[in-house]
């Protein structure tokens, strides 16, 4: 809370569009808020609200430090950030899945078994090293994680890695690059998160906003939800 303003951290990009649609459905001010605009702070003094437009991976950080009271972020980003925040509501939109994928030929040669696949090749390229490491560690499979920042599907094509861990929504990118999904990790949707201190001491201010967002989310999601 800055002064009397409740601060909400919103992600840039596609997830941000879903978030703004949800704000509208929840009856919260959203006019003129554009996650792609140059303007990064939107203030609505009458409603006592302020939005910060952040990179999606930074939303948990703003909330954890208390620079924002609430935030909207994908579960994928949240798990990867490992931030100490409260996870309040599954907002339902922004559906995607974490998967392990491998080149089709290699997968077929390995008899479609993850253990065989990893027998001689253990380099995993990903944007999500924490998620990837946890997945392989839990199964006792030693791998070498290679952190990349985008276009993960390029790594096996270029011989940089043998496997990838990435998020997919339709799976089209994988198919186009002759990759196949070999193991699911978990599925993800957008979440409403709260700073642990603000949630407790500003409870009276936060509750109505949280309830409105929860209600909007359960009443048919935020428009372009690709939830199955």
């Amino acid at each position: 809370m800055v002064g009397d303003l409740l601060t909400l951290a919103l992600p840039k990009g596609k997830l941000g569009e879903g978030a703004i649609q949800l704000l509208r459905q929840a009856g919260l001010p959203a006019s003129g808020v554009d996650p792609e605009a140059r303007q990064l702070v939107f203030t609505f003094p009458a409603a006592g609200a302020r939005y910060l437009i952040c990179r999606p991976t930074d939303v948990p950080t703003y909330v954890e430090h208390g620079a924002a009271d609430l935030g909207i972020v994908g579960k994928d980003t949240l798990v990867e950030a490992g931030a100490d925040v409260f996870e309040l509501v599954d907002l339902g939109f922004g559906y995607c899945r974490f998967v392990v994928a491998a080149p089709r030929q290699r997968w077929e040669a390995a008899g479609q078994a993850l253990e065989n696949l990893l027998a001689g090749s253990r380099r995993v390229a990903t944007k999500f090293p924490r998620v990837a490491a946890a997945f392989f560690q839990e199964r006792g499979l030693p791998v070498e994680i290679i952190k990349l920042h985008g276009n993960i599907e390029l790594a096996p094509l270029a011989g940089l890695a043998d496997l990838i861990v990435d998020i997919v929504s339709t799976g089209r990118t994988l198919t186009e690059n002759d990759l196949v999904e070999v193991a699911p990790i978990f599925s993800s949707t957008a979440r409403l998160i709260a700073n642990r201190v603000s949630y407790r001491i500003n409870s009276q201010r936060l509750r109505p906003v949280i309830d409105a967002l929860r209600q909007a989310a359960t009443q048919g999601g935020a428009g372009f939800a690709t939830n199955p």
Partner: protein
Amino acid sequence: MINGRNLLVPAGVRDFLPAEAAALRELEQKLVTCFQSWGYQEVLTPAFEFVATFQAGSPAGDEDSLYKFIDRQGRVLALRPEMTAPIARLVATSLRRETLPLRLCYCAPVFRFEEPRAGRQREFHQAGVELIGTGSVAADVEIIALAVEALLAAGLENFRLGIGQVAVTRGVLQGLDLPPEIVTRIKVALAGKDLVALEQIYSEYHLAGPQRRQLELLATLHGGAEALAVARQEFNQTGALAALDGLVQVWQALAACGLERWLFIDLGILRDFNYYTGIVFEGYVPGLGMPVCGGGRYDGLLGQFGYPCPATGFALGLERVLLAREEGRGPVRDGGYLVAGRDLAQVLRRAGELRRTGARVILDGESHSRGEAAARAADQGLDLLWTDD
């Protein structure tokens, strides 16, 4: 050796420059004075001990966060990650014959291997108290009242102290009669305030009606006396009820002392489930993303050192308090005298006389003239005493 390691410090540790060091020391002094005025005696324990001391179920004794090393006999030692376990060891050994209850306090740096974040360094300073040998309502009231006073003494004004009671949560979970693996998942979700995971558990195990309502209440009940009344009505199992009645008594006593304005009830505050056994609490300051203090009842710890007895206490994170007060710089120690002259023996003697009056005196045996010394004194904001007159 420019750019060499000899010029850097590792991640998670830091220097305190004069103003910062002064602010920290002043805060420490205020807190210890506050604790002592409530009859708590200060103790010091070693910076490192056998690792087993810290493994005795203490909240920060998590193996991965300990700084461990091996002594020359091959035994594993660790830097202290907190002060409660060492004090429990000390009470169970050296102070075993003392009459209970014991009131002890401390002020010390502790060490944890964690990712450095705002207000979370790998070396940080804690000040706290332990009230050992009493499980009474009076002890719980005293500890919370002292926490309020300590936060006031620390110069904080807008803080709130949230109070929970882990035995209520335990009692309710037992009364629900669910398989242990679900209870474990519920505990993890409650402790991390993961309401989405709780929703998933409700639908996975078809929890509905009163079972679901009680779990929702455990996760979200928040408020004052009215929240306790709701809990009293809803949690009619015996296990939770005794603990809840204790909490009601503590709340009423604190409210009767006029402390209600600093306090609220939140059953979602659990801290470390495996360590705390009763009332727990955390102190929050607006704008700071993490609690400035925390504590509660830990009746199981002393038993692990062979001296079973109830105990409660709390600790403040001093860097967090300083951060909350937004004080990079503390009180600047200025004023005083510059004693200067060409005769060093004379300078030293006059300076000594002045210091005996309680003044702060800085020596200057290097200025060749009164004018030069006067410039130095003016530069440092000091009054000049020129001894060659």
